[in-house]
């Protein structure tokens, strides 16, 4: 299968190791990964902040970039960005009166999958240790991000994949389905409420005794990880793609409270 990777802006710029792990997983399964060069961002920060006019060129760019190449499916390591591509892009085009873009956006959205959706529903991955060689000997907990859970209905796909990783120990996160308080610009506009939500989330995470909290959205993980770092908790966050990509020979390292990614790791 020829798979177009939508890295998402935050992963591209801040967490390149998550995108590289995604490439590594898909290539291990024997698929060809392409990276449409025109891609940038899904535009949900603009949409969710009410800046529809400013969102339109971002949405139009995404549609154009993912029309430019031939591929079977597109994938992104983010529930939130995929939900935006699928649900928000046609709405933004409609609201800005561009019926042509609306139809094109719906077509791109129809071919776009969140990573665990693609792995489980399309590529038939049920046992990460056996099918991907995944090995990660750490005690972890897992936060299901809101948009993956409620807009894409991912259910336990990410969690089930993590459970099947060799050597892993999974601690259940109390009140897992409560939002971490990120919410894009909400974290700045309503910083006090956002921080109060984060404090409850990080307390629950630390209470599990896990070394790190895994999740499927780099933005939520940056938020949770930023809080854990500020509290000097010693607990970190990691995208589930990196845990799936980790093997006995090339283990993903857990590196303290704010995880540092250099983008210069082996493929």
């Amino acid at each position: 299968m020829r798979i177009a990777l939508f890295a998402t802006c935050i992963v591209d710029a801040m967490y390149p190791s998550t995108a590289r792990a995604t490439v590594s997983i898909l290539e291990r399964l024997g698929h060809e990964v392409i990276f449409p060069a025109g891609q940038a961002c899904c535009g949900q920060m603009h949409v969710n902040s009410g800046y529809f006019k400013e969102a339109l060129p971002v949405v139009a760019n995404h549609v154009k970039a993912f029309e430019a190449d031939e591929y079977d499916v597109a994938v992104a390591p983010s529930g939130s960005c995929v939900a935006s591509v699928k649900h928000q892009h046609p709405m933004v085009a409609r609201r800005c009166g561009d019926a042509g873009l609306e139809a094109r956006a719906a077509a791109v959205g129809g071919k776009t999958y969140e990573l665990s959706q693609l792995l489980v529903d399309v590529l038939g991955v049920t046992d990460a240790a056996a099918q991907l060689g995944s090995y990660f000997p750490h005690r972890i907990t897992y936060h299901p991000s809101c948009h993956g859970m409620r807009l894409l209905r991912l259910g336990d796909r990410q969690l089930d994949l993590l459970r099947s990783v060799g050597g892993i120990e999974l601690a259940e996160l109390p009140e897992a389905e409560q939002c971490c308080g990120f919410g894009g610009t909400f974290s700045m506009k309503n910083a006090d409420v956002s921080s109060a939500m984060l404090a409850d989330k990080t307390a629950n995470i630390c209470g599990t005794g896990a070394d790190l909290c895994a999740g499927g959205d780099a933005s939520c993980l940056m938020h949770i990880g930023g809080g854990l770092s500020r509290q000097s908790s010693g607990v970190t966050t990691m995208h589930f793609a990196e845990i799936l990509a980790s093997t006995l020979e090339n283990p993903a390292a857990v590196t303290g409270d704010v995880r540092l990614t250099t983008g210069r790791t082996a493929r």
Partner: protein
Amino acid sequence: MSGTFLGMPSLPVFGIGNLHEHEPFPKAARRELGNTQLRANLGHATRTIRDKRLAVVSELPDWEELREAGRAIKESVMARLPELLEEFEANFTARGGTIHWARDAGEANGIVASLIRDQGADEVVKVKSMATQEIGLNEYLEEQGIAAFETDLAELIVQLDHDKPSHILVPAIHKNRSQVRDIFLREMEGVDPELTNEPARLAAAARAHLRRKFLSAKVAVSGANFALADSGTLAVVESEGNGRMCLTLPETLITVMGVEKLLPAWEDLEVFMQLLPRSSTGERMNPYTSLWTGVTPDDGPQNVHLVLLDNGRSAALADEMGRSALHCIRCSACMNVCPVYERTGGHAYGSTYPGPIGAILSPLLTGITAEENNSLPYASSLCGACYDACPVKINIPDILVHLRGEDVDSKRGKKRLPSQMDLGMKAASWALSSGKNLGLVEKALPLGRIAAGPDKKITKLPGIAAGWTQSRDIPAPPSQSFRQWWDKEHQAPAAPAASGTAAPGPKENP
């Protein structure tokens, strides 16, 4: 703006009354977050109701179908509201009731006061009602020399304490029983000075107090949960029976109801009587459901009035994206699952309608350009828990985003200087609208690494970004973006091919 009356009012007519923030939400929220009693009570109460709701909802195999039916019925009501209102009016009138049409809160208050005066009364008993809170009826009546006594236990507590409800279903959720005892001792006439904080003793004191009022009042004022167009019937759904007392004992009954409460027919109650109790109190059925159809000679109230209230509802109905907010049946399920509401409580929203539904309904009723209400649509992380809990499937997150868009658009070109948010969004729109632009921006990542310093984290940012760093660090950016790495990998075909099976290697900590 002219102070002179110039004839027909301009359209749309927006709502007035207790629908406004008193201060921007973030400011009110900050104060309420500091109230540890409130946080503890709310956390406990919302968690309890949340769990009860989940339990009774999961017993119904057709819950999702019921939600869909509720949504569809409400959507059809909104699509033919004028016709259904006229049908209701004809049936209600034919059975001896009198209909009054109120364009806004001021008209409704005036109608109710004059109906009370017609009976020569100077006090009324009240059934818990959101609509009369919305229009500020109690305060208006007080100005007119008419005392209004709330008879719902929690409303009574709040009223005696000269406070405001903080939850539409559990109005005194922010008070504990010792606080309630203190309020009773201070404010309740003839109360036993030895009153303890035992719930049974508190309930008995309230009961004795309320019985005196029920038996002496000539006029009752109520709201309504539903109105059935095909028969002209009104319905009130409650738990305590105090509503039933109000609805049956006084000679005159005046009901104030928003026009959106209409249902086409009796059989529609089948759907809503399954949805409402389960969603609100987490019960299979509420203890008291009262239905009345006009006047029954020599039985119950002999003067039956209904004030049909618009107060911004027509304006909300005109908003294609927002109109489904009018489907709301005031169950409060959205509040009980909302992580923002759970932490700030209802007072932070200012309006009679707090929580997720309040954050859309209040600005829809008053108009988003009402400056006092333009921070409400931002009072959400868009987690979506409210949409999942809503028994009539109001897509609250989508309407929040829609109203944010209306707010941003309404301010374009009107500000003397663009805000930091405006500038940031504009810059980001450029950076994120092509791969080339984003690639250019990513060339600056090493600068971020320098800013992060030896601790490899950014702990303090200026301006609006300071909101982030008040409780969160930002990691040092990577030395190269994914895009840069990909380009290097794929432009040099002579380079040793990657194995394609190895995982990312150990992280480097330069």
